């Protein structure tokens, strides 16, 4: 009866209690940081002696933070678009293509997700030093596209595997050109996969720290690099304010995702 929710008796109470504790543990840092960002103590005393918005004022008054956020946004958007475009073509080939070594190639394209990112960071850093691409936007975008590609391929390929190809063939039989059939029948059917790919690819770049630390220059910093630099100096509450805005962004992305999934799946 261990898998019957209604017939587990006292065991259910124990396991549910434990699950609640773990959920609280997972929620703790996120809630804590948001509360702290409104606390008036510079030394992050908790519970705070009073409430204030001054850390947000300080954050918004410092152009370096806004700059870093915009840089991150720009790089992540470009990397996501590239990764989804390249990933879309690759997924069609991986799912429908019939050629030798397909599984090996699939493994190769997913390797950037598995390889410890520090190894890639050091390697691309050395490589770009030689090419003169270190500390440039284009260098950032290339490196982040490599890292984002697996996150784009997996959802698209999964969606494509679940799509019945005979529907596309039917469109062609009914007179659509192959390209038309793909654009008007297949792509709309796998749009949830493409949408997830875009979100994951964006987050893969937006949250990326290690490559960014190596690639950054004094004039080109992404948001994680800026936070990293501040963290190494002190634990200022301004970081809590910046972090809270990032939590807000995460919540926003979660809501959008849930909303779109619900709409698309109807």
């Amino acid at each position: 009866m261990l898998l019957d929710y209604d017939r587990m008796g006292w065991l259910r109470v124990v396991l549910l209690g434990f699950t609640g504790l773990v959920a609280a543990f997972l929620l703790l840092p996120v809630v804590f940081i948001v509360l702290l960002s409104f606390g008036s103590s510079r030394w992050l005393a908790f519970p705070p002696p009073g409430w204030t918005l001054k850390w947000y004022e300080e954050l918004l008054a410092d152009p370096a933070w806004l700059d870093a956020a915009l840089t991150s946004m720009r790089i992540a958007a470009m990397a996501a678009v590239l990764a989804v475009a390249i990933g879309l073509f690759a997924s069609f080939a991986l799912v429908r293509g019939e050629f030798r070594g397909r599984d090996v190639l699939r493994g190769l394209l997913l390797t950037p997700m598995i390889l410890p990112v520090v190894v890639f960071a050091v390697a691309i850093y050395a490589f770009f030093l030689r090419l003169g691409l270190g500390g440039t936007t284009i260098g950032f975008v290339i490196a982040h596209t490599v890292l984002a590609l697996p996150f784009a391929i997996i959802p698209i390929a999964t969606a494509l595997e679940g799509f019945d190809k005979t529907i596309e063939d039917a469109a062609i039989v009914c007179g659509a050109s192959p390209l038309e059939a793909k654009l008007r029948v297949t792509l709309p059917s796998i749009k949830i996969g493409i949408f997830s790919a875009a979100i994951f690819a964006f987050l893969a770049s937006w949250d990326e720290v290690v490559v960014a630390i190596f690639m950054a220059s004094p004039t080109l910093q992404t948001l994680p690099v800026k936070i990293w630099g501040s963290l190494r100096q002190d634990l200022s509450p301004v970081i809590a304010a910046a972090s809270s805005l990032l939590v807000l962004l995460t919540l926003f992305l979660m809501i959008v995702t849930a909303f779109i999934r619900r709409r698309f799946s109807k």
Partner: protein
Amino acid sequence: MSVDARQSFATLRMPSGFGGLLPALVLITLFFLVPVVALLLRSVTEPEPGLQNYAALFGDGTYARVFFNTFLVASVVTAVTVVVAFPVAWMLAIMPPVLGSIVFGVIILSMWTNLLTRTYAWMVLLQRTGVINRTLIGLGVVDEPLPLINNLTGVTIGMVYIMLPFMILPLVGTLRAIDPMTLRAAALCGASPIAAFRRILLPLSLPGIAAGGLMVFVMSLGYFVTPALLGGTSNMMLAEMIAQMIQSLLNWGLGSAAAFILLAVTMALYALQLRLVGAKRLAGGV
């Protein structure tokens, strides 16, 4: 054009064949394979051709300690994560959907929140004057603050926090795939809950535990951010050492040799995981 001709035309022209892979392959070859191989070559060519970098890494007690720390933390993190994740995944697999979606929401929120944000929160929570120490002292559990940060304890807490979702989510899938009838049958045949757990539920979920555990272990081995921020300078881990050798010490030979060791261990464990779960399921299940 006949339908047949059209169909074969469709398969020929559209990116259904090998052609669609070309952009991805160019990108990965040029900006992933080439740089990584070039880096690894430096480990046997700098400062002069030979294996002296590897000899130095394996011959020195300081480096041995870093390897030991790395494997120790990765093992402890994996063990704790498995034990904590299992009951949660178990409940998530059979919970009523409304309750389940709340717990899933919390897991996704934690997982999607910026890594540095989460690490920053733990830095504040775990510091000497942090909430956790103050609460423990307030409750009279300890007399003076516990050293929870700048050591392997802090790293372990922070890493377990980050790895839990990666263990819980795949395990839910494994547990959902188990037929509740098998456990009902066990109960009918007189098996105690403990026996049913030990002889049916646990063995049936073992593939999921092994796959998730290996993934957490591999990720922990190469983790950089959390050890760098929550760990101390005297308790360095491998990824941090590689970054330091290259960024501050500019010792490319030694740094790339250490990178190669990390890469080799990771790839070997990954190959083992492919054996266990199969490439397709692994790629589709992430």
